[in-house]
């Protein structure tokens, strides 16, 4: 065996040659002794569903280390919010978690209401609950069905995407928009739940459970699916808490923290629902917890539709609630308020308020500091994705590339919320 047949021998020859010619250019030797490959996963990889870059060190097919790079769609929302009046910030919140924008919109409006001390009538609160739970269902449907796609099952995705489309039609009836909804107003909703919206909602509540059941039948005990997700990317409850996990990912690890139950907002205390928890915190648990949350959200919507109280759909807060168009055309006061609100001439009281809602991915917090001006002095978004995505390298290390994709998918990292 010649000297240069072995790795050690090759290195030795290389070192000796380098010693004889100091300062001269030497060919770069591939360091096969480590046999690590650097793999650039992303920024635009079709299986990552967003712009995430991960620089992975691979030992064969095993991931040895990963370094995530984020910020590819950073749009400086916190800076922009320092210049925008409160209504214009709603459109920024749309673009954070764009899979469940109504939760962001209404969470933001509730924050402003808390600052202003506006009490929202029961009917508006119930409509908000319905819309937020619809958004949660849409969010979880996307996450779980995409997880199916990533494990090779496309059918489930198509089944439930039709239902997501119907949810978007209900959004359309309520606010006129589909994806970036800009829903609600400070003080209530912009319009009442119309008969058409209620009809669509009732029809959907009848048809959806069968589809969901079919989706669950296809996945929950599917041998191929389970082989791909059980014990993939587990995280312990302590680790998850330390990493700041919230929402379904934390509940999958076995911690029953849900903002809706712990700090109820918008009349969530009126409804009966369970908080599903997992045990291992692995991909399968995250999938099952999300599925179960969809059923619980359905329970909440059913109760809210049944108990929907009569009454006004917005608070009597003319300084902050944008008046309806017919009023603006006929009524002087309404015209003045419309003008002042649209021009952002409404001053908010001095104060600081932290308001958290249960977003699709966890505790979505708005920390608003007002110095009494027309815009926030500082607005900080607690974005659940941003906070829990930092655990991703730890969860992915030791798994294979295909598992890493599944873990990323099951964590439901939304690029818009991650980068804000």
């Amino acid at each position, binding site marked *: 065996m010649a000297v240069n047949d072995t790795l050690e021998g090759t290195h030795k020859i290389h070192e000796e040659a380098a010693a004889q010619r100091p300062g001269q250019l030497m060919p770069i030797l591939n360091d096969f002794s480590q046999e690590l490959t650097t793999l650039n996963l992303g920024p635009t990889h079709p299986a990552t569903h967003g712009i995430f870059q991960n620089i992975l060190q691979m030992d064969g097919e095993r991931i040895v280390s990963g370094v995530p790079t*984020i*910020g590819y769609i*950073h749009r*400086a929302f*916190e*800076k*922009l919010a*320092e*210049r925008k009046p409160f209504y214009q910030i709603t459109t920024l919140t749309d673009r954070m978690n764009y899979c469940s924008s109504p939760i962001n919109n209404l969470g933001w409006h509730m924050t402003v209401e*808390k*600052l202003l001390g506006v009490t929202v009538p029961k009917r508006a609160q119930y409509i908000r609950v319905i819309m937020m739970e619809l958004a949660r269902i849409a969010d979880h449907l996307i996450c779980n069905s995409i997880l199916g796609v990533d494990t090779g099952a496309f059918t489930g995705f198509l089944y439930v995407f039709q239902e997501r489309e119907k949810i978007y039609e209900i959004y359309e009836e309520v606010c006129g928009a589909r994806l970036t909804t800009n829903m609600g107003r400070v003080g209530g909703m912009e319009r009442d739940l119309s008969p058409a919206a209620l009809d669509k909602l009732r029809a959907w509540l009848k048809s959806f459970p069968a589809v969901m059941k079919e989706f669950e039948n296809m996945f929950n005990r599917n041998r191929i699916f389970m082989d791909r997700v059980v014990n993939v990317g587990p995280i312990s409850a302590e*680790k998850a*808490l*330390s*990493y*700041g996990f919230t929402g379904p990912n934390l509940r999958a690890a076995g*911690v029953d*923290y849900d903002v809706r139950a*712990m*700090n109820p907002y918008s009349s969530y205390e009126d409804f009966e629902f369970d908080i599903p928890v997992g045990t291992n915190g692995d991909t399968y648990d995250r999938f099952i917890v999300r599925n179960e949350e969809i059923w619980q959200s359905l329970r909440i919507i059913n109760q809210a539709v049944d108990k929907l109280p009569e009454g006004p759909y917005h608070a009597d807060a003319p300084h902050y609630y944008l008046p309806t168009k017919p009023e603006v055309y006929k009524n002087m006061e309404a015209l003045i308020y419309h003008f002042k609100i649209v*021009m952002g*001439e409404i001053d908010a009281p001095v*104060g*600081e*308020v*932290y308001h*958290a809602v249960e977003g699709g991915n966890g*505790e979505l*917090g708005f*920390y608003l*500091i007002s110095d009494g001006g027309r815009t926030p002095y*500082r607005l*900080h978004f*607690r974005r659940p994705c*941003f*906070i829990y*995505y*930092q*655990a991703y390298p730890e969860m992915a290390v030791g798994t294979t590339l295909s598992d890493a994709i599944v873990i990323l998918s099951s964590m439901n990292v939304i690029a818009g919320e991650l*980068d*804000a």
Partner: protein
Amino acid sequence: MTPQDAAAAPEAPVAEDPIKAQNAQVLALLMRLFGEATFTDVHEPYGLLTATTTREKIHEIIAGLQQDQELKFHFLTTMCGINYPENEGKELGMIYHLHSMTKNIRLRLKIFFPIADAVVPTLTDLYNTANWMEREAYDFFGIVFTGHPNLIRILNVEDMDYFPMRREYPVEDGTREDKTDLFFGR
């Protein structure tokens, strides 16, 4: 009816606000654990206990709160930087939101320090989640966290040479005139 009774009478019918009572308890405990002089500017905006302390004490306080068997502040909800340019000597600040899930108590702690010496101890040894939050604060406010394992920019490009969330950088170019509004003055 004695004068003592008269003084006590108006207090009795007032229903004790549970949040206020809880905050008072937490505050008493904080004062006992870390000393009364540690906390200044204590108030409760919208029911959330808020206190200002110093950067020398912050690590000790949060570590103490995390290990405290009664309160168990195991969860760091969020932290963010803030800039008050007109606050001489205390231009920059960090605001911490802690959450005790077992007792459902939230707590907000603030520290302020000069912009020329924006150095704060890291919390990464207490909470894993502090890592990216501190990188974000560094990225946007230039707050340096001593002991942070990887303090580099996170959302902005690496070669950015300023800290964009500081108030000295306006959102819009100040020399633009096409957006000036003669009636509303902005």
